[in-house]
């Protein structure tokens, strides 16, 4: 036993994790690929390998859905990352310990507050009629809750807390002494943020942004309750196909798998941009 343990060494220790990843991540991806590349014949019920699902998922309404999802999640995650970062900085600067704790707890709750309850809160507040809506429409006449713009207003409600939650620890790590040292050496506020604060924060800020993007991209219950599919999102399309009450034809599930595969591709692309950036910002930290 001991000899085996030595032989496997560090790899042996990591084996359970790898096994877990294979089952929890590898297997579903494999299943998506397998099912996404097949389609049963409507008459004979015989399944054959085909690219039909994938090509269909890149055309027409499904392409629109994918692009709308991308547009919505990029827009809302950028907005939320910026607001969240400033909010987190303001909170980090405050002296009240209990205040900070309360904010962190509240953020944890709010970041997971979505779906129909959230949608209903917004419907009741700025849905139709009402004072708040008329205020908003004074500034933004075309604003309506059940449109793309409406979703862009609702999403930051759960994305900003997520950003606060992920960046607050890093902001807490910025010591006042560093800022003082920079000032003593004649550095301006801009120079401090450009050469010290910014690079230190970048990995956490980027990580928060990516989390926000993922959360926005994966969300659909809120959007569905608010828009009834008038704003096409890929996640809503997947749910309509896989677990809806309307679409039912043979082989439609395979199309759903292909759509899900597309979302994995998007996430992979996102990570392909994010990881090198993170590596780079981490290097600044080391040097």
């Amino acid at each position, binding site marked *: 036993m001991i000899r085996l343990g030595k032989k496997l060494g560090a790899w042996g220790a990591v084996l359970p994790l790898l096994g877990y990843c294979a089952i929890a991540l590898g297997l579903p991806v494999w299943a998506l690929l397998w099912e996404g590349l097949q389609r049963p014949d409507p008459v004979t019920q015989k399944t054959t390998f085909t690219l039909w699902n994938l090509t269909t998922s890149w055309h027409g*309404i499904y392409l629109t859905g994918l692009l709308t999802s991308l547009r919505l999640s990029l827009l809302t995650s950028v907005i939320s990352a910026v607001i969240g970062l400033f909010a987190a900085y303001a909170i980090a600067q405050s002296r009240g310990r209990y205040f900070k704790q309360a904010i962190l707890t509240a953020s944890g709750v709010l970041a997971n507050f979505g779906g129909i309850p959230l949608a*209903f809160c917004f419907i009741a507040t700025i849905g139709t009629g009402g004072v708040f809506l008329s205020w908003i429409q004074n500034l933004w006449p075309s604003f309506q809750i059940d449109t793309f713009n409406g979703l862009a207003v609702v999403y930051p409600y759960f994305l900003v807390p997520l950003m606060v939650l992920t960046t607050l620890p890093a902001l807490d790590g910025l010591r006042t002494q560093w800022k003082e040292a920079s000032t003593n050496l004649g550095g301006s506020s801009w120079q401090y943020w450009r050469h010290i604060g910014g690079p230190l924060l970048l990995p956490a800020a980027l990580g928060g942004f990516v989390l926000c993007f993922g959360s926005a991209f994966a969300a659909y219950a809120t959007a569905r*309750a608010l828009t009834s*599919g008038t704003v096409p999102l890929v996640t809503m399309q997947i749910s*309509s196909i896989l677990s*809806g009450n309307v679409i039912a034809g043979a082989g439609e599930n395979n199309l759903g798998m292909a759509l899900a595969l597309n979302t994995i591709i998007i996430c992979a692309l996102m990570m392909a941009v994010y990881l090198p950036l993170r590596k780079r910002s981490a290097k600044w930290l080391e040097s």
Partner: protein
Amino acid sequence: MHRIAKLACAAVAVTLAASACSSSKTTTSGSSTNWSTVTSATAGGGMDALVAAAKAEGTLNVITLPRTWANYGKIMDDFTAKYGIKINDANPNGSSGDEINAIEHDKGLSSAPDVVDVGNSHALPNTNLFADYEVSSWSDIPTALKDANGSWYGDYGGYISIACDASKVAPAPCPKTFADLINPSYVADYKGKVAMSGDPTSANAAFSAVWAAALSQSGGSLDNIAPGISYFAKLKANGEYNATVDTESTIESGSTPLTVDWEFNNSQFASDLKAKGIDLTVSIPTDGLYSAYYDQAVSKYAPHPAAARLWEEYLYSTTGQNDFMGGYARPVEFAAMQSAGTLDATDEKNLPSVSGTVNYPTATQLTTAQNAITSGWASALG
């Protein structure tokens, strides 16, 4: 890195092999009758034999039956009280799609669904998953609402209706038809107030509402749902359409005082909201008369085949059928029960009045309409 990759591959291979090996076990009942293939109570030795076999199984697995939907809470409780058979209701808020997935993927498990209650769109293409069975009152079910071989059979249904909270749309009157909803003199009062029960590419009630609207428009038919999509696009252009999903809360808060939904949903809203002082009237539009029935089917792979068949017998007894009506749904044996005088008078009075007759879409028409709505809904209303 190569070693990690190899290890990961090995892990995947092992899990795959394991899942591939999990054989599908088939349960065989203890008695001489194999209830999995029995196509009627008589063929299995009569009702007493069925009851005895079902009691011996002791359990019934149902799926996606909300207790507040079509009175299912009462029906399940009464069934358990009468026969002493425990009911497991899996995923009560799931969809027809979930039910079909469960039959396909839970094959051989003791927790697999025995019976399903699916929309007609999900019954028609999946007859290969259902076991043929004809309940004792088979002849009371209208021919158009059942499969000739007994694969699936309508249980309860309703018409698309328009619910209206008169106090929230005044001075305009409550709309009675689809034409009223787009009447130029009412548009201003209906602004932002017309809702459905969600996304028509996923919610059957919303899909049916669009189809009903299509029937009210020129060119709209069971063959062509497109005019219905244009109708809602017009509602949207008028500023009347409210894309939020209708619920009791949105009606109560005044966000969606006009809802186009199944009559049993709207009537349930009306009955619940009455206690809160909201007066909701439900009318069935004569210009877009559309009706659909949900279907019962016994799973071919039912782990409790006798209990499944007894459940069907119970649902199609006068008690079961009247119970559906207690939940504001129209029982499928309505006409037969009416002539036999077995309808519950109070429950019957609670149903909104209907004039005219409806036709039901065929499988081909359903598929065509599904494709049209999937590709057309978001682009027309986005």
